[in-house]
């Protein structure tokens, strides 16, 4: 099944590389997934639509440079979309608010500790820790806990191995845990 999907993508990519008009097949197939991915990062419907469209335009313009490596085409689209999202955050002069939900905070908390009971103070502390993370760690947390990407998908996104992706996530969670331990004593 997975192989069949890859074969179809490979065919569509080859067609789009010959004539950009065939990019429409890839656009139709992946627009929705890319949109939801962008929405999970910016949490604004219209903005997510604009960023997705820009990402698709970049993908269409660069499709000739794309080399098939056997990794899912969607990972390449996610990478372009993530760059667009990061560019949006960098260029924004106003403060951009990313809305998250209780269950996402809970998922993140459970990933580094199973003894924390989440109250208002704990939630605020975790959000502060998240805000103080460097952009790379923030991106990783967002991919795993807000965009709900699997470790396999994260590995494909960064074009790294599965164990390297696990290690990267582990280190980021350790950073959060360390800061949590230090800061929690103060509240």
């Amino acid at each position, binding site marked *: 099944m997975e192989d069949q999907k890859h074969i179809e993508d490979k065919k569509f990519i080859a067609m789009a590389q010959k004539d*950009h*008009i065939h990019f*429409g097949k890839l*656009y*139709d197939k992946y*627009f*929705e997934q890319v*949109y*939801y991915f962008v*929405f999970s990062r910016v*949490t604004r*419907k*219209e903005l*997510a*639509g*604009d960023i*997705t*469209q820009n990402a*698709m*335009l970049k993908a*269409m*313009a660069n499709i000739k440079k794309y080399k098939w490596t056997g990794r899912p085409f969607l990972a390449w689209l996610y990478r372009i979309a993530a760059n667009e999202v990061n560019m949006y*955050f960098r260029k*924004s002069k106003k*403060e*951009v*608010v*990313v*809305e*998250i*939900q*209780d269950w996402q*905070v809970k998922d993140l908390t459970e990933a580094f500790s199973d003894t924390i009971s989440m109250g208002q103070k704990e*939630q605020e502390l975790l*959000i502060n820790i*998240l*805000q103080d993370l460097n952009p790379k760690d*923030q991106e990783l947390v967002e991919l795993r806990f807000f965009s709900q990407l699997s470790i396999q998908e994260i590995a494909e996104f960064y074009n790294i191995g599965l164990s390297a992706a696990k290690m990267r996530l582990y280190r980021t969670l350790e950073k959060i845990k360390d800061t949590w331990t230090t800061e929690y004593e103060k509240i």
Partner: protein
Amino acid sequence: MKKYKVNNDQQKPSKKEVQQYKNFAQLKHQYDRFTKRPKKPFYKDPKLFLGLVVIVIIVYLIFEQQDVTIIQSILD
């Protein structure tokens, strides 16, 4: 700058809503505009415009010089 905020009322857009943002015709139009930008008219390109002015002046001076030579030879 990015800030996180907990909001449990936020809802994931429905598939129907997502379809509103999907528009390949618009994307194709943007792509065409992006890749096939019309060339600047020559008079809007300062270097090209200046070059043409210089050529016109040189041609004018050559013909002017020829006229002077012809008149001079008639008078002589």
